[in-house]
């Protein structure tokens, strides 16, 4: 399989390619050749997605990932090296340059792609995201840390991905925005929710994403062996809180799982190609004015039983 990178490869470009059927995550199988030659700009989020796909394939069928060395893409490859794209856990059959595998300073503008496996890594990773974003405003930094930790926890706890989750973040000073992406190649949202008896009959990926965005929806479930009563569940608020933070702050949330894509500004749509697991992409303004406790308290309304309004005529 050969994948030729476009001139610009960001998460949104990757989505656009996928919508047109020009990027198929499921095609990353067997011997993979990457052609970086057209590439002049790459976003860490999109590259984290490619890395997750390569890592998944390495695990199931160890194969080498090749790419031709071309003079015109050396600059892009140096940038990818700083992103930690060329890590040693993937068998590259060709090195772009002698020191390609040496991690370089990211100069504080982005978090190099990081592979996490265990829940105890969440706290440090979310702190590192805030540190590399160099956020001067303490309340905003807290919200970034909040969002990052919830999304990383979600991926690590629910995806069942043997390769864990890949995380990255970038600050765009001129746009006054922060991007964060968490990707896994695990079971996806639908299969996770279907573990819970309430959601066993969940129809498809679209219904699964819509469900996951609602408060108090969780797939975590451990039935008591004796009376089959559930004795362990999460509260099921993670994604719905992040969605509400992005809505209140003017940010945007994307969730791509299986064949469904959620975009906070336009809703859910069916994708022509499938993501094997879940990708969450969050964009927020650098300066945030959202109180997360208020957001969480706002979900009380979801618990209120619907009131029956009787209509009385005189």
């Amino acid at each position, binding site marked *: 399989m050969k994948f030729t990178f476009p001139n610009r490869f960001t998460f949104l470009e990757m989505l656009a390619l996928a919508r047109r059927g020009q990027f198929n995550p499921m095609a990353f199988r067997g011997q993979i050749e990457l052609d970086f030659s057209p590439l002049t700009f790459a976003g860490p989020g999109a590259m984290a997605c490619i890395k997750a796909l390569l890592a998944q394939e390495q695990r199931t069928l160890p194969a080498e990932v090749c790419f031709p060395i071309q003079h015109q893409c050396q600059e892009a490859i140096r940038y990818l090296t700083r992103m930690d794209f060329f890590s040693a856990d993937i068998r590259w059959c060709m090195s772009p340059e002698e020191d390609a595998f040496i991690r370089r300073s990211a100069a504080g503008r982005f978090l190099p792609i990081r592979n996490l496996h265990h829940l105890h890594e969440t706290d440090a990773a979310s702190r590192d995201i805030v540190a590399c974003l160099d956020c001067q405003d303490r309340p905003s930094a807290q919200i970034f840390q909040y969002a990052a930790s919830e999304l990383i926890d979600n991926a690590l706890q629910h995806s069942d991905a043997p390769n864990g989750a890949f995380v990255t973040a970038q600050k765009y000073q001129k746009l006054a925005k922060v991007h964060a992406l968490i990707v896994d190649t695990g079971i996806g949202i639908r299969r996770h929710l279907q573990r819970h008896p309430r959601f066993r009959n969940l129809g498809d990926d679209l219904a699964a994403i819509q469900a996951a965005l609602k408060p108090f929806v969780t797939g975590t479930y451990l039935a008591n062996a004796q009376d089959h009563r559930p004795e362990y569940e999460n*509260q099921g608020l993670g994604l719905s809180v992040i969605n509400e933070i992005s809505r209140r702050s003017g940010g945007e949330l994307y969730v791509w799982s299986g064949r469904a894509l959620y975009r906070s500004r336009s809703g859910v749509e069916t994708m022509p190609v499938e993501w094997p697991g879940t990708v969450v992409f969050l964009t927020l303004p650098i300066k945030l004015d959202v109180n997360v406790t208020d957001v969480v308290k706002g979900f009380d309304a979801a618990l209120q039983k619907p009131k029956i309004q009787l209509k009385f005529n005189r």
Partner: protein
Amino acid sequence: MKTTIRVSDVLHTGAITGRHTGRVLRESVVAALTRNPIVAVDFAGVDLLTQSAADEFIGRLVRQDADIVARISFSNCTPDVAGMLQWAAEHANSAFQGEGDMVAA
């Protein structure tokens, strides 16, 4: 006898994020409750508590044994931290009781 657990001594951070961190705190409190009838949890220096961490700490305690919460007191909480703790405790069983919207198949 009453004992006090300083969160900053247990977790060494002012930001309690992630389920793992919430679990570490819960296990510290549960261990203290086996030795003492009352445990005070001091949140001095903590200015961020995520919903997942709060659920893993206090929500899980309520789900396991709601009566045990009467033996725990909380001090030096910022309004946001107190709000998150209170909410997580009150709604510990919200998903458990199936109060969320049911999803169409």
